[in-house]
């Protein structure tokens, strides 16, 4: 009897992923084809395309605190500690937007600088029905876009993104980090869209 109880307890611990906060880091180095495939599997709704090529030279600076640990709320998968280095996520997206596909150094004349000041991610997994679990990730990014005005003075505009998407993470929370990465990428694209829109309104001021 004792042996059976112990075996059940051991199996229960395994089923819960041992209940220990194991750390995982979102991997932003995966190739585009793999990203597209996993997004199709995990994300509810379509994945946004990478930013279109722009006509500006860009630089990127991130506050070190923006590489953060995602908050996992709720009962599902909350034992997992997911590190989210969003700086790594934004660089290739900005490179796609950059005029010549190569980021410049911040402070270089004629270069527009995106500065990331704050980032946070929140994930929660809930049951909608028996055997129908979904996860919802929210990623918030905030920063500034610095450009040189007509008078030669450097000006900054605030930019922000607040994206929430739902999706699946597989059995035993196995693809949680990947899901958070996919939603973070959506937030990165939204941040760049915000920056692009605000810069475009400057180039075409309303009279």
């Amino acid at each position: 009897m004792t042996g059976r109880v112990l075996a059940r307890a051991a199996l229960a611990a395994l089923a819960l992923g041992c209940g220990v906060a194991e750390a995982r880091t979102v991997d932003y180095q995966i190739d585009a084809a793999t990203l597209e495939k996993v997004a199709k599997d995990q994300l509810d709704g379509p994945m946004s395309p990478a930013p279109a090529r722009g006509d500006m030279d860009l630089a990127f600076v991130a506050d070190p605190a923006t590489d953060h640990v995602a908050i996992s709320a709720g009962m599902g998968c909350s034992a997992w500690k997911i590190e989210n280095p969003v700086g790594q996520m934004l660089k290739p997206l900005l490179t796609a937007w950059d005029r010549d596909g190569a980021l410049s150094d911040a402070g270089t004349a004629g270069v527009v600088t995106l500065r990331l000041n704050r980032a946070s991610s929140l994930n929660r997994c809930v049951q909608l029905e028996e055997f129908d679990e979904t996860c919802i990730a929210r990623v918030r990014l905030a920063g500034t876009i610095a450009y040189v005005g007509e008078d030669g003075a450097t000006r900054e505009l605030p930019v922000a993104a607040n994206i929430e998407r739902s999706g699946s993470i597989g059995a035993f929370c196995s693809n949680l980090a990947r899901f958070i990465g996919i939603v973070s990428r959506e937030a990165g694209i939204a941040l760049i869209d915000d920056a692009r829109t605000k810069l475009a309104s400057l180039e075409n001021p309303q009279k």
Partner: protein
Amino acid sequence: MLKTIVALALAAIALPADAKQRRVVEPLPAAIVNNNHVVAVEVSISPLAQEKFAKFEAKAAEKRAEARLQPVALDTQFAARPGEDEYATLPFQKMFPLVMEDVTREWGLKGGQPIKLVVTIDTLKTANAAMAILLAPSADQLAGIVEVVDPATNASLGSFYVDVINSHSGWGGMLMRGGGVREKLAEEFSLESARILAGSTKKDLKARQKQREKEAKERAAAEGAATTGTR
């Protein structure tokens, strides 16, 4: 499918029958913890949960009709605050704010910074009776995110997440569960919220419960004395 069933069954051994979780996402300023009172509660339902909610709302409307009460829509303004006995007949988005206000007041949150709670519900799920009786425990769940807002400026003061899960298994479990599941979940959600708003610790929890019981006795005694006085 089999793996999921086995995992659920094993998880039921490990998870307590009444697991609750609250998690602070953005901490409240220290000055307003245990120094606030709820003046308004706005509830919205996440798009993922809306389809399920339609069924709950239909059931509440049915109960209201059976009780011969005037129908209530989301934009209905109450002439008088509905009593607790009416809660089961109200739409969730009308019932939940009333429960939250009741519970936070009972927790002594009556003064200090006025706050508005903006609640987004991720899921409201009830236990599957057939599964609970025949196969593995099934759970009632209510989960959502609560943004605490200054009602004067709409500035965010903080936020937290609440996930209430009550598991049930077997005939006994389902019988003990009883009715009014939606209202019970709302009350437990509100209790977890009150604990965060009050900055409550375990020790503090016992003291508050004793205080609530004492106030309830005093109220009952006062009502009894008033009744005797009028005879």
